């Protein structure tokens, strides 16, 4: 909603189209001195030649990508300095008000011409007004309209017209039926500026309108219009400028820069200490399926930053958001077409000292050429025939012992290869990105496209790894005590195709997103196995492809006269897939009797996982803006959404049986599987050698479905120019079914069902105390629901964390009441301070808890509706520019931090803080820009407080993730206008990632310092 009421002129239809690119006036600056145009001042951009501010108070500049510095002076006296960032192709409007009595004030509006109807409708408005004369006499009844849009007014009896329009570029068309002449004039509307354009229509001199340029201008009331301040809820936005500046390659790394946001495993977002079931993610308004078998959360490393135009972290629930957004809703908006043909190529090389160029353990199935794109080309398929033999053995009653033995022998032989580790050289990380977009205008509309592709191939590591476990007793010595090294070849590929069509009041967009992340990981561990007290050498080999596909159609329509009624819709089909063929687990134990490693054949496992989520999401939203009154402006919005999701998860595991009693030699002095699993030793009879065994568990495979139908309504009233109240409600019908099989016993089918309806009310109240201060309050209700597996009666093995999970069919959905209070203070466009307090009260929160268990069931977890929980915290976010004596140099410091605390009361009276909730989060960004030489230096610092990653089993302490100081340094220089060189030192301190249990190391590793250098070339 608008900060300032739209006042008099009937809003014109809000159209979205661009006129021809204005290549040389990306920046328009209006300067006013005590309310009058400050003609005669000089303005200099980035240390360039000063320009004189014109009679209307304006001056225009050509503007490139990057950081900029604008200096306003009068007779060598600097009156005001302004710093801002701009992305490539962005238009920037700057208004500066100089005052004899107070500080100068400024506002900055940035936008792309290619924006949707609704985006433009939300933009600050300016106006154009003036006099139309014909042959020197005022012309009444002439039509002044906007090309391609419905907006048009007629001049009054004195020949005057006025049009109020969102900032942007327009072509005005002046027509008078009397003589049929049409005159056109291109105007750029700047927010809160009333531009005067008088038109004198000549008599017979031709059809062209002669525009007599601006006679006078007047400054409208000050506006500080920016996304954050006009949102009705608490939003933290990362725009394209910040995304570029922070230099993070994935969305998951970028969101860390937002207050109270933490990221687990480099991919799962926690907002205000809440993750998993408490955070929702939407891509251009559509929900996303997850590639993670045990979580509903979307892993964000799937989304490269450079296909993203804006990331919003919405921390307050509003009725239009998914009902599970307790912690928040992460909104990813992908890029759309540019305002003119533009493209970019970038190339980066990365080097990790201690890894790149070194010899590392690698997957024996690795094939450089066929693995190059991250698609497994059958190298890791289940060996041919093994599935058939496994199926045949299910009907072993039907065969004689000889046939069974022969099946198990052949199965064993088929399965025995590609189990020995290979070695290879870790190559540098190569990233390549390209994008191109263009726009084509046609009568009354335009069509544009944007296409982007990214490819990345490199190695990462977890070096100097330590993994230990501890007994419940207090001796303090490790039980299992392993050292490990992990190396992974990571291959990412992604693409975006966005097609857009703007037809006046209608916008259509089609987005195709393909994103893939492949890891080919080898982990080698050596140490003491606590249970057997043997020295053990183990390795696992993984190939994990995660893929996200989505096809979206989006539409925005402005209906009816006056543009009061807008319609938004989206229809999205998406698919998330995790394909992990041929995980290999191999273990050798050192027997002290002969000091030789023995292959533990019964522990050898080859697993093949395939999980697919298909998601269809359709939404239709309406907004109606009521006629403004003296009291205020009201908007009624409502919509409906339907989501259907289906998951198919399949898993097969194969291995061997036997060898123990047979006297077969399992000595493997060279730690080679091939020395033991030989054709001779695989006899098919566990009594005489090794035999194939199908180790697939009945509950490894399951199917699940969910349907979520919702409808929402929201009423927004801005009144007395200072207050805003938003009342809303969301109704959700949720149905989820999970089908699997009993793990033991008759292995019968198990189905669990959740079917419930929820109503979620919201209330927010905003008080715009004065021009620079705001106070917001919100009270909302959200919901959290169990995930597919969590309600199933079947027992699962969580392969990721190696524990056994027993679902709980009695889980109830949980309700959360949220209270938010936020105060904001703005000093300038990019200097602000905000302080927020939040409190959340959970009824029946769903918690993963330890299941008391015995023997093989040990290390079990289950899910429980705890009695209650609460969480509260405070977060601070500020950014100030630092005064720098030397002209042409800017610096800023941005800081955000939060302190969070929570308590969950469990059944049986225990209490602890919520899992995954850090005590605090801190981000500090120091930026330094040397404008004349086009250099940019950014130092980023991030640290989060301790959080519980897993609750302790059987009286053991909780496993805690320790704070870790992460420091990154980014540097960029524009060598020439379209060519930039960039460099990055990531993880400068090489801080260890450390988990502790009772103060002792549980797991620890380091990933190394990352050095990156690259170029960007724009064309």
């Amino acid at each position, binding site marked *: 909603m608008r900060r300032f009421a739209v006042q008099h002129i009937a809003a014109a239809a809000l159209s979205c189209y661009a006129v021809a690119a204005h290549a040389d006036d990306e920046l328009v600056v209006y300067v006013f001195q005590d309310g009058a145009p400050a003609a005669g001042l000089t303005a200099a951009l980035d240390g360039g030649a000063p320009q004189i501010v014109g009679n209307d108070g304006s001056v225009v500049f050509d503007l490139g990508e990057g950081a900029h510095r604008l200096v306003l002076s009068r007779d060598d006296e600097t009156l005001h300095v302004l710093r801002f960032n701009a992305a490539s192709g962005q238009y920037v409007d700057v208004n500066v008000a100089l005052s004899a009595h107070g500080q100068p004030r400024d506002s900055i509006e940035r936008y792309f011409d290619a924006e949707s109807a609704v985006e433009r409708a939300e933009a600050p408005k300016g106006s154009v007004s003036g006099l139309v004369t014909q042959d020197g006499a005022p012309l009444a009844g002439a039509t002044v309209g906007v090309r391609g849009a419905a907006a048009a007014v007629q001049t009054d009896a004195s020949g005057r017209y006025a049009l109020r329009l969102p900032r942007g570029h327009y072509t005005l068309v002046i027509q008078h039926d009397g003589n049929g002449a049409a005159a056109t004039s291109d105007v750029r509307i700047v927010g809160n500026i009333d531009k005067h354009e008088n038109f004198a229509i000549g008599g017979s001199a031709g059809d062209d309108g002669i525009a007599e340029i601006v006679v006078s201008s007047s400054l409208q009331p000050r506006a500080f219009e920016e996304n954050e301040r006009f949102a009705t809820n608490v939003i933290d936005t990362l725009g394209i400028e910040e995304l570029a500046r922070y230099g993070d390659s994935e969305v998951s790394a970028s969101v860390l820069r937002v207050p109270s946001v933490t990221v687990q495993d480099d991919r799962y977002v926690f907002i205000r200490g809440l993750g998993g079931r408490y955070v929702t993610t939407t891509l251009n308004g559509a929900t996303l399926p997850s590639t993670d078998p045990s979580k509903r959360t979307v892993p964000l490393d799937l989304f490269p930053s450079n296909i993203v135009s804006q990331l919003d972290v919405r921390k307050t629930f509003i009725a239009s958001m998914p009902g599970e957004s307790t912690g928040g809703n992460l909104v990813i908006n992908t890029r759309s077409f540019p305002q003119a043909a533009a493209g970019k190529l970038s190339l980066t090389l990365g080097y990790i000292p201690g890894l790149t160029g070194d010899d590392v353990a690698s997957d024996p199935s690795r094939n450089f050429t066929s693995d190059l794109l991250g698609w497994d080309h059958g190298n890791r398929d289940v060996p041919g025939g093994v599935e058939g033999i496994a199926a045949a053995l299910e009907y072993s*009653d039907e065969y004689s012992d000889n046939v069974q033995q022969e099946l198990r022998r052949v199965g064993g032989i088929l399965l025995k290869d590609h189990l020995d580790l290979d070695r290879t050289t870790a190559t540098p990380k190569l990233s390549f990105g390209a994008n191109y977009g263009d726009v084509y205008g046609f009568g009354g509309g335009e069509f544009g496209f944007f296409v982007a592709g990214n490819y990345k191939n490199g190695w990462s590591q977890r070096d100097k790894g330590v993994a230990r476990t501890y*007994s419940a007793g207090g001796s303090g010595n490790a039980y299992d005590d392993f050292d490990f090294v992990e190396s992974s070849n990571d291959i990412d590929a992604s693409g975006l195709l966005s097609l857009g069509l703007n037809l006046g009041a209608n916008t259509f967009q089609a987005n195709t997103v393909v994103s893939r992340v492949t890891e080919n990981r080898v982990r080698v561990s050596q140490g003491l196995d606590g249970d057997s007290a043997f020295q053990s050498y183990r390795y696992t080999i993984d190939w994990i492809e995660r893929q996200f596909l989505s096809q979206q159609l989006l539409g925005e329509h402005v209906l009816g006269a006056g543009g009061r009624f807008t319609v938004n819709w989206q229809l999205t089909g998406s698919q998330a897939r995790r394909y992990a063929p041929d995980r290999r687990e191999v273990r050798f134990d050192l027997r002290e009797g002969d000091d030789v490693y023995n292959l533990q054949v019964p522990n050898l496992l080859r697993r093949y996982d395939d999980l697919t989520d298909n998601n269809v999401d359709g939404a239709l939203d309406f907004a109606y803006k009521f006629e403004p009154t003296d009291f205020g402006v009201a908007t009624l919005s409502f919509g409906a959404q339907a989501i259907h999701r289906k998951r198919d998860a399949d898993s097969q595991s194969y291995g061997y049986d036997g060898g123990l009693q047979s006297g077969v030699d399992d000595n493997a002095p060279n730690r080679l599987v091939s020395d033991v699993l030989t054709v001779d030793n695989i006899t098919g009879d566990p009594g005489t050698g090794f035999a194939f065994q199908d180790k697939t568990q009945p509950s490894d495979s399951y199917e699940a479905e969910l349907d979520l139908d919702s409808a929402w309504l929201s009423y927004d009233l801005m009144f007395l120019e200072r207050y805003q109240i938003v009342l809303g409600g969301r109704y959700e019908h949720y149905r989820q079914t999970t089908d699997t099989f009993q793990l033991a016993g008759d292995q019968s089918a198990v189905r669990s069902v959740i079917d419930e309806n929820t109503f979620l009310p919201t209330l927010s109240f905003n008080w715009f105390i004065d021009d620079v201060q705001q106070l917001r309050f919100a009270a909302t209700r959200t919901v959290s629901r169990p995930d597919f597996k969590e309600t199933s009666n079947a027992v699962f093995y969580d392969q990721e964390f190696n524990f056994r999970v027993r679902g709980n069919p009695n889980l109830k959905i949980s309700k959360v009441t949220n209270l938010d209070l936020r105060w904001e203070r703005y000093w300038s466009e990019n200097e602000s301070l905000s302080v927020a307090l939040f409190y959340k009260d959970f009824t029946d929160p769903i918690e993963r808890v330890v299941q008391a268990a015995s023997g093989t069931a040990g290390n079990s977890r289950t899910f429980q509706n705890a009695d209650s929980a609460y969480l509260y915290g405070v977060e601070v976010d500020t950014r100030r520019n630092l005064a720098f004596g030397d002209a042409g140099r800017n610096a800023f410091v941005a800081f955000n931090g939060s302190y969070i605390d929570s308590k969950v009361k469990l059944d049986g009276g225990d209490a602890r803080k919520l899992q995954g909730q850090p005590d605090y989060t801190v981000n500090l960004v120091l930026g330094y820009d040397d404008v004349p030489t086009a250099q940019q230096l950014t130092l980023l610092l991030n640290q989060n407080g301790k959080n519980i990653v897993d609750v302790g089993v059987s009286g053991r302490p909780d496993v805690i993730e320790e704070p870790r100081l992460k420091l990154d340094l980014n540097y960029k220089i524009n060598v020439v206008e379209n060519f930039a060189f960039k460099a990055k030192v990531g993880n400068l301190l090489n801080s260890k990632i450390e988990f502790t249990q009772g103060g002792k190391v549980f797991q620890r590793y380091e990933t190394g310092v990352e050095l990156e250098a690259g170029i960007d070339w724009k064309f």
Partner: protein
Amino acid sequence: MTFKKLMLASVMAAAFGGLYGCTEGDKTSVLIEGDTTTNNGGSGSDSGGTTTVSENCPDWASAKNKDASGNDVCALPSTIMEDRTLTRDIVWYLQDRVTVGNGNGEMSATEGELANGGAVQNVTLTIESGTQIKGKKGTFANLLITRGSKITAVGTAAAPIVFSSDDDDYTGSGEWGGLIIGGYGRHNECDDAATACNVDGEGESGFAGGYSADDNSGSLEYVIVTEGGYEFAPGDEINGISLVAVGSGTTMDHVQVNANSDDGIEFFGGAIHAKHLVLTGNLDDSLDWDEGFQGNIQYVIVKQSADTFGTTIEADTFGTDAFLSKPVVANATFIGGAGASDPNFIHNMKEGTGGFIVNSILSVDSSSTTDPACIRVSDDAKANISAQTLVYHNVILDCSYDSTLGFDSSSLFMVSADLNASYASGAAEAQLSSPIDWTAFNGTYPESTADASFLDATDYIGAVDPNASSAWYSGWILDGSL
């Protein structure tokens, strides 16, 4: 699943004489050729031909084909909710898990009342002496007795009850599951009697545990369990007999577990008292206790498999440290494995365990080429030595003993065990001057759990009395197993 069926069809279609697999790119054919004789009824015969359906199965069991010897074979249903008797005239077949009672459901804080409001069914499964129970080979077939229900398997020396796989012999391991018994006994995961006790049990057996130390889960007498230990989850085999929180009211006397892939007998909490155990050829540990087990065991012969991974005792307290595992094991003879791949210790005392090993022998197989350590005590159990909750008393250590462990060595004898053919010791130290006085023992070791009314006051060291004319194990255990 559909794909598997298709593959199966293609495999079945080619089922004649010999078997070949070949893979060429994506195309694979597996050709089975050879005898088409099948194991109808799964009763374990290659000779084929006999396809007569058993005639005398009760209506609550399902008739299988008779076995090669013409015995009736009846398959037990997957759940048994009424008292049943398995008669010796029938071979009882376990197709898969057979669950007796419903006490493995989630219990409320009141024993006997399930969390969902239902009542626990107290079912007794009676097995006549001489009865054979056979699990389907290559499956996790097992017999599960749940809380509140009982097994009354009372054989005789002449007619023991035998659990095995459905093949012809009693050798082999990991061929079927085993026997799992859950009770209301104490378990150190449950330390607050006001809250429900539900310990997720071994072998996906559901919940067990409670607050009744004297829980009675029935009787096992003259029972043999062999060839079990199926690997039911990757890396997880099942024990021959798993006792989860089984209390002291239960009887266990003359029981053999042979050639199990996992442990022989594992006690998860509970306080069952047992006598006359023979644990032979088991591939993991023979005697294993955890999670607060405090029973009494007397007369045990352990002979580890030559191919073992395990030790004769593997002992833990954890679970939690709410209360220790500290059973009394008296008159046991432990013979470690002989293989080069054996661990080099005979007892593995770890994870905070306590225990009282009394009048016992630790030795190794006579063919052994190594000299293993007698006792390994992990760091977290060492404090129990000085606290006198981990005690070795009157023990012959015919192995390498590390005196720095700090046991009271006055009653430890580092001499040759000198075992005779009856596994009795010829060592002079094996003859005690007077019978052990268990009451006095409890006075010396206040933490002892010895039950003088259960334990015999023996005057010798080892499982077999050096002065006995015959060993107590002879005549009923599996031939050749010892």
